[in-house]
């Protein structure tokens, strides 16, 4: 009985705002990319991290990685200066359907495995908890 209630109540689909990612990325093309940051665009609706990925042949390809809205991160105290050029990142996601060097960044981590921009200060607390 308890379990059934739980399913009923918690049925708020966390619908990703803006677009359906399935329309842009191909779930048959998973990618894992490791590379150095060349740029980060703090733009909406999605921030983009650009990284230089060195292939097995030594060739460098620049990839664009789609993240969420940067406003969340800015409110948590991160700024456009928070990700330095040259930082090494590992990205897990799926490649764009149009075959370009673009992927979504489902997991974005540093070399030591820590997630990019996790934490930060939280201004999301309402003024008065009681009311």
């Amino acid at each position, binding site marked *: 009985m308890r379990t059934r209630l739980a399913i009923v109540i918690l049925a708020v689909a966390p619908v990703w705002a803006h677009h359906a990612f399935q329309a842009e990325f191909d779930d048959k093309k998973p990618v894992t990319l490791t590379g150095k940051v060349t740029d980060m665009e*703090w733009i909406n609706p999605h921030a983009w991290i650009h990284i230089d990925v060195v292939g097995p042949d030594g060739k460098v390809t620049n990839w664009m990685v789609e993240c969420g809205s*940067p406003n969340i991160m*800015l409110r948590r105290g*991160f*700024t*456009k200066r928070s990700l330095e050029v040259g930082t090494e990142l590992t990205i897990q996601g799926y490649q764009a359907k149009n075959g370009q060097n673009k992927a979504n960044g489902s997991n974005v981590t540093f070399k030591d495995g820590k997630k990019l921009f996790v934490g930060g200060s939280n201004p999301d607390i309402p003024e008065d908890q009681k009311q």
Partner: protein
Amino acid sequence: MWQTGSIGAEPAGQSVVEGGPIPYKPEKLAKKKENYENRRTNDPEAKCYMPGVPRANYMPYPFQIVQSPKGILMVYEFASANRFVNMGKPQEAGSDTWMGTNNGKWEGDTLVVDVTGLNGLAWFDRAGDYASNNLHVVERYTRTDPYHIRYEATIEDPSVFTKPWKISMPLYKVVDKNAQLLDFKCVEFSEELLYGQFKKQTSSTK
């Protein structure tokens, strides 16, 4: 251009720039020329992008200045752009935006707005004048009589210009009965320009 007849044409207007031409660094003029030559497709206004500062204030569409105890909001018809002027302790821009980070204060009866954090992607006008994301604009709004504001803006961007330069113009109060802003949500007019090449080609679209 022939497709819109004289509607798509740009008549002359006298310059609002004080003291001569915009002082570009010589090597930065080529980009302005390129902008101008491709303005029908490259002007961010054609793409319905937000116009930035100071362009938003002198587009041919009305805007409204809302003065509240909490700060000042400028609401523009074009592209539903707006910007909130913080009248408290100045805040720094966390990231670059189209309408900038606006910090304001009063100097006597003049509203002074310091605008930073502009992304350098907006143009100044339809002639392709541009700047970079080092752009810094200081605006001054002085009401000279019930129906006019003298609007001045000092523009500096050491990456693009040899020195700061200034524009100055009157803003005219709209005195129509029941005047109100009407949205100019122009995205739909820009989609063919931006995405037409990606549409599915059928016999009717070829």
